[in-house]
């Protein structure tokens, strides 16, 4: 079940250069939300009609947190909003991570890359197992300290300014990090590398994909990704990121 709400902003903040957070007070959305799901955020400016999909970063009672990077006009608009104002949001959308699945009790490696890091925070909080958390940044860190209470955090930065110089897999190698199930969200090259790594090492692997969206609820077929098998809903090799995803078993999608 998902909902459309005009949600009150109860807190905003800036977490780094171009990285912002908003806390919403919701009637129903937060209560229904799972880690890995997302919300559609709508612009108040009539020239921008499509929703901006943003992952849920934290769920606390009826409160929802998003952390996002300013990319274009939509996210810039959101970053100018203030406490007390409202935004139209819809959700929770997508499948999210299943923290009650059998595999979810295995030793986990949680990978987050760049602006793919925020959704992993609520996942790390809700997973009830041994957690290795590997976060990859370009340079400036954000959210990393908040992960520490949920597991062992390892950092990789492209410029080497903190942790391992390189990407998250470089950090895995450098620290000999091991696990039996992988959860990952981040840029496509990172996801491809992680998928390959998981296959090689025969580790179960769940990844979160992105695609441009129009409806965000599975009706328009804008946001498909290629699936290995014929999908049950589409009857072709396409799965909807907004509905069957954004979280996929890495084996079932071609990336």
């Amino acid at each position, binding site marked *: 079940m998902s909902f*459309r709400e005009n949600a009150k902003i109860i807190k905003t903040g800036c977490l780094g250069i171009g990285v912002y957070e908003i806390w919403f007070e919701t009637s129903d959305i937060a209560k229904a939300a799972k880690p890995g799901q997302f919300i559609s955020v709508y612009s108040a400016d009539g020239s921008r*009609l499509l*929703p901006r999909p943003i992952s849920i970063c934290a769920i606390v009672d009826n409160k929802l947190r998003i952390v996002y990077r300013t990319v274009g006009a939509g996210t810039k608009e959101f970053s100018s909003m203030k406490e007390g104002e409202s935004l139209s949001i819809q959700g929770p959308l997508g499948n999210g991570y299943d923290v009650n699945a059998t595999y979810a009790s295995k030793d986990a490696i949680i990978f987050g890359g760049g602006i793919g890091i925020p959704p992993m925070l609520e996942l790390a909080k809700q997973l009830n197992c041994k957690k290795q958390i590997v976060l990859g940044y370009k340079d400036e860190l954000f959210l990393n300290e908040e992960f520490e209470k949920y597991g062992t955090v390892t950092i990789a930065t492209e410029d080497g300014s903190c942790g391992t110089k390189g990407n998250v897999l470089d950090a895995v190698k450098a620290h000999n990090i091991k696990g039996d199930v992988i959860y990952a969200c981040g840029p496509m090259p990172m996801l491809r590398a992680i998928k390959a790594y998981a296959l090689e090492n025969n580790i179960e692997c769940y990844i979160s994909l992105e695609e441009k*969206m129009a409806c965000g*609820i599975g*009706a328009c077929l*804008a946001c498909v990704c290629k699936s290995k098998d014929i999908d049950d809903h*589409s009857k*072709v090799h396409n799965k909807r990121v907004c509905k069957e995803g954004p979280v996929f078993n890495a084996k079932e999608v071609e990336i």
Partner: protein
Amino acid sequence: MPAESVNMSVNIAGVTFKNPVTVASGTFGSGMEYSEYVDLNRLGAVTTKGVANVPWPGNPTPRIAETYGGMINAIGLQNPGLDTFLTRDIPFLKKYDTKIIVNVCGKSKEDYIDAVEKLSEAPVDMLEINISCPNVKEGGIAFGQRAESAMEITSAVKKVSKKPIIMKLSPNVTDITEMAKAVEAGGADAVSLINTLTGMKIDINRRTFAVANKTGGLSGPAIKPVAVRMVYQVANAVNIPIIGMGGIASAEDALEFIMAGATMVAVGTANFNDPMTTIKVIEGIQSFMKKNGIKDIAEITGCVK
């Protein structure tokens, strides 16, 4: 549903719709996903996403791009094929007290005929033939940009169809009345317009097209004035009823189409911005009628000459 003191029901080719509001094909799936937000019983009809005789994979992604006051799409008519559609989507819709308009696509005349034949025995109310999709290589718009081929497809599907036929017209033509007259001559029971305007967006940073298909169909409030103009022109050129669409996001928008001559209207892209748009449009038309002492929606259909 509140007791209606005004008559909003309309009739097209013998089918009675409880109100003149449906959805534009492709923007509402088969209603399943939207049924979480909208009581489908409230709608005059559900018009389903284009379906073909066999499953189509559609185009590569990105399939859409936002534009100023609208969007471009090049979904490429991905659909699960009629077999799945008839056993999954139609039974779902039959649970609701609303009419069903099935939008049909094809790559050749034979495809259309095959699909229409298969649909003839199905419990659906009308068929809408999409000869105006700009996003597929074969078929689609090619049929919708030449009067002769539009007429030919129309008579071909009319010959095999047991359901009333709506022909869906492309706005990417010099003279829309010529196309409307052609499908009327071919035997169409109604016309729907407009499909999308062919458009393009360039991603200047990546120096490539914003949608993988290069071009796509422009829809949304941005195109409404073109749609209203064409509905008005067609209303004054043919005698078959019109289902008007293109940028409708409010009751005021819908009333523009109705006054220009549309018997029914469809909400498309606006569903993406607000899934409750259809209901707002229905309620808004109703209160406009009450406020202005209009007893029957027919009183204002085509009232602006």
